[in-house]
């Protein structure tokens, strides 16, 4: 079952994944007394509501303290208003220079890609191979990150240019845009870091938070994560296709899955034909060298995007949220969750650009539909707000954040320690139990059941 079927109204985030819009008439503060008059009751999609009536906290199994225990309902409401105002400020000043920016980036990326592929026609010569492969790697990264990801978020829809629009864009990635937009914009951005709802927390194959339940298969997650890094675009495609759920019999119906899978396979086919057949054939004697160049460029992009994306929500310091905590969530609370559930990467302008400004993950999650070139100017203001409200603003250099995320992946591959028992001890016991059950199963249980256990 995908989360769409549940009771939150996803349209408020829309396929463009904008920040939910507050209805204009709702900020009802009495001008003379300052008292809030009309209080909207909590409704299922109250993320449109700017009014927070009560402070609620749903504790998590780990018993970690509430990170915002010090804020009152009024504080959260005020926070929501401040962030709305900040968003409005940027929206109001969006204009010709922003449009010129994205057009320039798209143009430069296309020239770089064409130029690099051109150079690679002579990839048999080592300097040409090096220059062409480097250029193609960079072009592919920009295409996925600063252009594809952001265009498909609807960050540039306001330009009304049908060629740069979330509904028409297709990217150089194994995952077709329509599936990616659903799982990323509609699910991940709505349910950010809600345990059991946001599959981006470990992509369904890993445990990246103490409050995710441990099972023995997580022992292999450092290895899966490494593998996923190498083939990341295919990992994304399988994930967006909801392959895992389907295999476990919990996903789409067979018909839908077949149709969707065909779309993915065809897209992968088209990209592979370009990178590993046509371009090499056009390179003539450089055939093999061009194949290698494309493979390396795709690998570089996989490793880079995987690393950057891991930094978004996995590093230490990032908060997760209990499923029940988002029931009737208001705008202020939604904003809070986005801020505490994301982590930034600090670094140079070039680094921000190459990450598609996902290094401004906190700002991006607060305002997913603001043009990416504007996050840098919003960032210090968000940081100031965090300071003022006593909220953690998680950030660090790229190597630091990547290491932190990897550390989580490795440490959390083991279960949480318990008083008097170590992580390793608990894991060993659980594995032992499972092995014994399996052995018993071989003699006593029907076969079908066994293969299920091993799956």
């Amino acid at each position, binding site marked *: 079952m995908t989360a769409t079927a549940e009771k939150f109204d996803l*349209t408020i985030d829309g396929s*463009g994944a904008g920040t939910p819009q507050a209805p204009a008439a709702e900020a009802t503060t009495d001008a003379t007394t300052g008292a809030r008059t009309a209080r909207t009751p909590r409704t299922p999609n109250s993320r449109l509501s700017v009014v927070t009536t009560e402070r609620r906290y749903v504790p998590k199994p780990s018993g970690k303290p509430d990170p915002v225990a010090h804020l009152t309902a009024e504080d959260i409401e005020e926070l929501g208003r401040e962030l709305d105002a900040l968003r409005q400020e940027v929206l109001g000043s969006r204009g*010709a220079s922003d449009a010129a920016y994205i057009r320039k980036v798209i143009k430069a990326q296309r020239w770089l890609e064409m130029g690099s592929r051109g150079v690679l026609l002579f990839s048999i010569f080592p300097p040409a191979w090096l220059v062409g492969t480097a250029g193609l790697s960079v072009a592919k990264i920009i295409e996925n990150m600063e252009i594809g990801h952001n265009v498909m978020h609807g960050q540039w829809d306001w330009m009304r240019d049908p060629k740069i629009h979330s509904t028409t864009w297709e990217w150089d990635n194994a995952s077709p845009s329509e599936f990616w937009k659903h799982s990323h914009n509609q699910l991940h951005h709505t349910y950010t870091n809600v345990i059991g709802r946001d599959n981006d927390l470990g992509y369904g194959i890993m445990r990246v938070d103490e409050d995710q339940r441990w099972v023995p298969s997580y022992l292999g997650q450092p290895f899966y994560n490494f593998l996923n890094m190498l083939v990341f675009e295919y990992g994304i495609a399988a994930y967006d296709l909801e392959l895992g759920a389907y295999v476990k019999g919990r996903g789409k119906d067979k018909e839908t899955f077949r149709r969707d899978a065909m779309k993915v396979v065809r897209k992968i086919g088209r990209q592979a034909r370009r990178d590993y057949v046509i371009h090499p054939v056009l390179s003539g004697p450089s055939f093999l060298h061009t194949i290698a160049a494309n493979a390396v460029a795709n690998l570089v992009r996989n490793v880079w995007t995987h690393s950057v994306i891991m930094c978004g929500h996995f590093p230490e310091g990032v908060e997760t949220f209990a499923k029940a905590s988002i029931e009737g969530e208001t705008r202020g609370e939604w904003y809070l969750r986005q801020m505490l559930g994301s982590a930034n990467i600090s670094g140079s302008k070039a680094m921000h650009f190459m990450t598609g400004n996902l290094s401004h993950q906190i700002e991006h999650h607060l305002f997913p539909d603001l043009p990416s070139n504007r996050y840098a100017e919003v960032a210090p203001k968000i940081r100031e707000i965090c300071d003022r409200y006593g909220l953690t603003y998680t950030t660090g250099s790229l190597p630091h954040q990547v290491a932190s995320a990897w550390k989580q992946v490795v440490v959390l591959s083991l279960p949480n320690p318990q008083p008097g028992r170590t992580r390793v001890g608990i894991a060993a016991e659980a594995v032992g139990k499972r092995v014994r059950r399996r052995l018993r199963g071989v003699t006593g249980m029907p076969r079908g059941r066994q293969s299920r256990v091993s799956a």
Partner: protein
Amino acid sequence: MSTPTAAPRRATLVTRALRVAEMVTTPLLPADYLDLINPLRAGADLRGRIVDVRRETVDAVTLVIRPGRGWRGHVPGQYIRIGVDVDGVRQWRAYSLTCPASAPDGLISVTVKAIPDGKVSNHLVRRTQPGTLIMLDQATGDFVLPEQRPAKVLFLTAGSGITPVMGMLRNHLDELADVVVLHSAPTADDVVFGAELRELAATGRITLLEQHTETAGLLSLEELASRVPDWAERHTWACGPTGLLDAAEEHWAAAGIGDRLRTERFRPTVVTAGEGGTVTFAQQGQVVEADGATPILDAGEEAGVLMPSGCRMGICFGCVVPLRDGAVRDLRDGELTTATPENPVPIQTCVSAAAGPCEIEL
């Protein structure tokens, strides 16, 4: 090689080359790359480059445009749509062509008058530089002279309404024996193409009657008979503000010669408002609140929905999309249109406003 097979063989070669090119550029199209090199090439989406901006009056300019290779020409009196980025946002507006129909240099021109608070007209008149690339559409419209040129013609115009008429005069004057132009503008200096019109009048090619409304007041059609005594014998083309055109239609109809009058409207005549409501664009996943006076086209575009459009005033049907559910009101006559998912109804979004919640198939 025999000639009959050469052409098809070349065609298949081209198709094959194209297919290979598509395989190379996937997920984009070859055009996306070719556009970087030559946006005006044959086969590209129709665009134009502004090569000159000529001032006509204080608030009007003529844009001289080099259209892309796909330009198919026009009949004088017709208009084109221009897509221009204002503050980064693509806006489409219609402008009548004022140029010779087949200029040897292949350039075309439109003349734009800035209207108060007008988004696009002010941008074009005050801020547009030569070299700007714009989007274009092929010429269209039936405000043109018939093949059989009428013997006596009256052009009844006001303000920027002179533009399609100028297009006809510049192309067909030699074929017209007797032309009267009755034009209204605030002052003599505000008359767009004033010098050219007066020159034509001086050489006896047309009879020019100017109404300077700042001093003489608005033209009243009561005076028409005194100013153009044979008006009823003339075939008339009228273009100007809504008030003038409404009055003219009434006047000609009252005389029983409604068929001798042709009008070109630059904006729709709005008579009623809808009730407003929530408009859902299901496929693009957008929901917007629209009031009863806002065309669904504007409301959708404002929210970033990609909407097809054309004249934006209810004449070209370029904006038609199915209303899947709910009700809309036609802003021109107040007529209510309702639809259900079983019975979707095509509507013109540029002149329809929400009349309650409705869902558009986009």
